[in-house]
């Protein structure tokens, strides 16, 4: 593919050298900027506290203490906080799929009266800065109107607001719009109702978009900080991020760093496993140039 620099320039001797130099520099820069900090954190966790505090810092640990990871797991009760985070993120994911997929399907294929008004009202919420809704949503969570329920310290305080996600509905609707109506017609002729059609016909062919929405949902919930910070005042119920921030001052640095590495591992593993979907999700909603 032709880009800024022409292929013929690249083939010339000067071009070859220039390319090699620029490629080498970029590679080095990327390794230093993006991989080295992670190396520093992983090896830092395995240094002894004395070594971690010494100046100048050592680039390779003098003594290796891989057991710090096990210590961190115990001292920070990471098992409990992992479970909390999995419950919060997993529930947010399920809530988004269970609520947004039928809604997008109804708006795309059943086209009810006032459907476009409803969609419009949902999309308008995308224009609001999230911060502007922080306080009133918090107040709502402490005392749900009509139900008189206080969701503070309950994972539902994260699950339900997460499902009010206009971006998901937009992505899903746009995908469903491309599914030919003939396919639904065929399902109808076979005697399938709308719900059955959604379950048996639409969902199986919507795997790509479901994957994108799922990944976006899980990653957003795992990374979120300010909302869990507000709704989980009970230290037993907190997510990993909130707990790490809370104990950061009191913990020995090597234990804290080990905890940070462990808390990041699921996201890094998820990224390595689903990078294609994650990168697709990045451009799925973004604008076309």
């Amino acid at each position: 593919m032709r880009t800024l620099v022409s292929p013929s320039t690249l083939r010339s001797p000067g071009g070859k050298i220039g390319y090699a130099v620029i490629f080498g520099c970029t590679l080095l820069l990327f390794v230093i900027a993006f991989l080295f900090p992670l190396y520093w954190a992983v090896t830092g966790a395995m240094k002894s506290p004395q070594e971690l505090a010494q100046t100048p810092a050592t680039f390779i640990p003098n003594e290796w203490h891989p057991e710090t990871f096990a210590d961190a797991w115990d001292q920070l009760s990471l098992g409990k906080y992992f479970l909390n985070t999995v419950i919060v993120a997993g529930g947010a994911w399920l809530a988004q799929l269970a609520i947004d997929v039928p809604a997008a399907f109804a708006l795309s294929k059943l086209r009810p009266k006032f459907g476009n008004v409803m969609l419009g009202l949902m999309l308008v919420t995308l224009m609001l800065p999230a911060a502007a809704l922080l306080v009133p949503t918090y107040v709502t969570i402490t005392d749900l109107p009509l139900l008189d329920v206080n969701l503070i310290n309950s994972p539902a305080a994260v699950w339900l607001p997460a499902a009010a996600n206009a971006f998901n509905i937009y992505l899903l609707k746009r995908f469903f719009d491309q599914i030919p109506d003939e396919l639904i017609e065929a399902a109808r002729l076979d005697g399938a109702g709308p719900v059955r059609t959604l379950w048996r016909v639409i969902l199986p062919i919507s795997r790509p978009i479901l994957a994108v929405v799922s990944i976006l949902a899980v990653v957003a919930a795992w990374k979120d900080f300010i909302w869990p910070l507000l709704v989980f005042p009970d230290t037993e119920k907190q997510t990993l991020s909130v707990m790490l921030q809370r104990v950061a001052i009191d913990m020995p640095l090597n234990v804290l760093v080990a905890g940070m590495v462990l808390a990041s591992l699921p996201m890094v593993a998820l990224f390595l496993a689903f990078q294609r979907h994650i990168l697709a999700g990045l451009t799925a909603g973004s604008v076309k140039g």
Partner: protein
Amino acid sequence: MSSPRSSSVLDWPATASSRAGRPVASAAERRRNRWRRKLKENLTAYGLLCAALVVFALFSWYPIVRGVLLSFQQVDFVNPPTWVGFDNFTRLFEDPLFGVAWRNTLLFTVLALVFGFVVPFVTAVLLNELRHAKAFFRLAVYLPVMLPPVVTALMWKWFYDPGAGLFNSALGAVGLPGGQWLDSSDTSMLSLVFVSTWANMGSTTLIYLAALGTIPGELYEAAELDGAGLWKRLIHVTLPQTRFVLLVLLLLQVVATMQVFTEPYVMTGGGPDDSTVTVLLLLYRYAFVYNDFGSASALSLLLFVALGVFSALYVRLTRKADQS
């Protein structure tokens, strides 16, 4: 509701019943049947929509209204809220931190644009030219985006440590003096911007890269035949071809960076000397430290208005620039 295509879907329950072999109906009966069918379809659709409508009503639409109301109320969660007019706003304006927070937030936003806008674009243009290790570059630049922001913030706080931190160790190794980073009010904001740029540039870079990939190669060829050098091709082909993505991301970035919270909350707590108190940090203090939800809501309303006015002006100006 009128195109033949959509009507085939809307006919749904009725055709199913007509297949059961009903006797031919009179005109009035058909009208009634059609009405009943429409009703049934709408009920099915709203049945599927109802959960979404409930969560939107509870956690989006209602809070929007509630937020505006709260801005003019005093709430203590014991007594019913009382209407206080513009008292909350007056209280904010009298708070010396109010001006500081807006100034700091603007500074953060401007710095974040200088780095967070330029660096990813240059990186994307560069990566688009490289023929090898593309997968590695994409993976590496996006890796920080996957880290929980609290981890990133705590990690960088440790890197910035003036004693045994990574930066001063590295500077010391090459014989340079270390910096105070987060501990001096001169550099604290800049240090936060570095973290934020490092953590977030992966997504913008990859979006730019995707946009660059859609530029037709012939444009570069034609420009080169016309004698345009590297720089001219960048200015006259690359930039115009990606301007829409650039403009939209610029707006999104301003809106996002104006809401910065995690980095100052975790790394500096607003200090030193209030140099990193941002609007959102102040909002957090009002709501959850002083328990003054009215003033906090008033501050959210101001932030919303500021961003709304900015977005409207921005869209209008860029559209005008497009037309001329």
